[in-house]
């Protein structure tokens, strides 16, 4: 079973993603902040991270940079934000994909599937 790490400060969104991806037969880990996410990534074998950009302690790009700097193999990351406009920030290119959050989860589900299969 593949493991997803979801980093998002919104309780409802975390819950939504957890239910959605568990129904898709993934193991789902949840983190509320950037540092929590980094901690979970360090302790567990993660196959893919769905990372929000606006987080209470740091932004998604910073999480991305710290992951790359940790020296460990970095799992693929899908940046998932309610905001567009970060597409041209350089560290965004460390992520597999940049998605705009939507209530329609099909795009996110398809992307997760594609990235994991590619891996």
């Amino acid at each position, binding site marked *: 079973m593949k493991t997803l790490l979801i980093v998002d400060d919104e309780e409802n969104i975390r819950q*939504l993603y957890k239910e959605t991806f568990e129904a898709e037969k993934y193991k789902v880990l949840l983190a509320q902040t950037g540092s929590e996410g980094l901690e979970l990534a360090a302790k567990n074998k993660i196959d893919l991270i769905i990372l929000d950009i606006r987080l209470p302690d740091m932004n998604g790009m910073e999480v991305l940079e710290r992951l790359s700097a940790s020296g460990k193999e970095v799992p693929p990351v899908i940046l998932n934000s309610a905001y567009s406009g970060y597409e*041209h920030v350089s560290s965004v290119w460390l992520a597999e994909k940049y998605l705009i*959050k*939507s*209530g*329609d*989860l099909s795009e996110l589900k398809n992307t997760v599937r594609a990235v994991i299969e590619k891996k």
Partner: protein
Amino acid sequence: MPEKINCWEYRKCPEKTCPAYGRRDVFCWAISGNKGCLSGLEASNIFKKCLGCKVFHVNALTNPEHGFMGLINQLYVELEKSEAQHLLFRKITSLIHSTIELDKTLHVILTCVTAGYGLGFNRALLLMTDETGSFLEDRMMVAPESKEEAYRIWQNIAKLDVSAENLSELVNIYENSFKAKGKEYKPGKLALALNGTNIFTQCMKDKNALLCDYKYKDRVPGDFISFWGTDYFAVAPVLSGKRIKGLIVADNFFNNQEITREHINLLSEFAYHAGLAIENALFYEDLEKRAKELEKTNERLKEARQILMRTEKLIAIGEMAATVAHEMRTPLISIGGFAEIVRDKVKDNPEVYKHMEIIVGEVKRLERIIQDVLDFVKPFELTLTDINVKKVIESAVLITESGRKKHGNISIEVPEGFTSVKADEERLKQVLINLLDNALDSAKESKVCVSAKKEGGSFVLEIRDDGIGIKAEDAGKVIQPFFTTKKNGIGLGLPIAEKIVKEHKGTLSISSHTGGTVVRIELPFLEGKL
């Protein structure tokens, strides 16, 4: 004894320094009374010589008619006339400095040239040089139609005690009498080339007034003679500063009176005033032009300020809209996401399933509205890359059709060999999606065609449909934000498309009739390297 007799001939006078010597238009004061042959300064100079003449002495004392009293009377008349002329000049000068209407001033000057105590010419014509300075064109003329008319007008004027005080009355009589040829004179009858040795060219070159008589017979242009009717006239240059602006021509066409040196001098004086008037008028014209320019600049400044204020307001509204839209988006994601989960769990309960479908659909609609608002209000920068035109169009068609039941209604026309341009791929795709959406809504079942081509220096995209077209009353509004005829639209599709096209420094135009609509996008063609 003959009535008119030249003193120097009669007396065999050897006095060559006398101003009367050798002249045939000056007659002996003492014998003939020197009737009206001279005036002003000239007369007084000759008179000084007469005082030393024996004939004058004898006759002045013995002849009661032409004698001393006659002379005094005549001198008195001359003096009066000079005084009147002097006043007239002063009046004209002040008029010139007080009026800025060129035509009116020029008309007054020409009138004075022909007025009794002014110069008493029969006719006066103002010729002005054209812009290139190579032609003289008629600008204004003051003249009676015929001898009869001239007589009538002069009678009117004779009744009037012509002096500086009633100059305006005089001008009125002239204006009324000569309306057809004076103020209302229609120029453009003459164009005299300024070349060679013709008399006008010479007058302008010398900057001196001259009398055109038999000596210059061959140097008067034929065009002018057929227009003016005679080759005997006086001509004086009109100077504005150092530049010659034109000429005044005057003559005694109706009464054939001789034109004297004094007449010429006076005409020259009038012409000088005409020059001042022109200079003045030009100055005022220039001033007026500058004032108008200033006014326009001011107007533009005001407009710019208003636009700025409007823009600032729009930016503020935009920022607010963006904030609200973002805040609404997160809860909507939860609603939409959970609604989908619930919907998938109630597949076996058709009624609840239908309700859940509605919630999911409406959330999607709200999300789309939020995205549109964000796209519209957010400033963005283009990322120009080499794009494959056909692929971008195909992708836009695919996305547009994905939300619809019927596929395959859109045909794509891209000429062979036309592959790549530089543009912002995602934005251009969005433009196409917005326009194709409109076209499909309008076309219903009929075909929609999207084409791309190069036309001159432009990259042209066209979206055509055979649909219902845009109603005439809506034609001006479709491009306005939040105008929509659709049940589910918020009216940002076209404004967003236009905004993106404008960012590309292009234009978006819509032509519509009952048989369909064509939206044409023209972008500067930048060749891509794909």
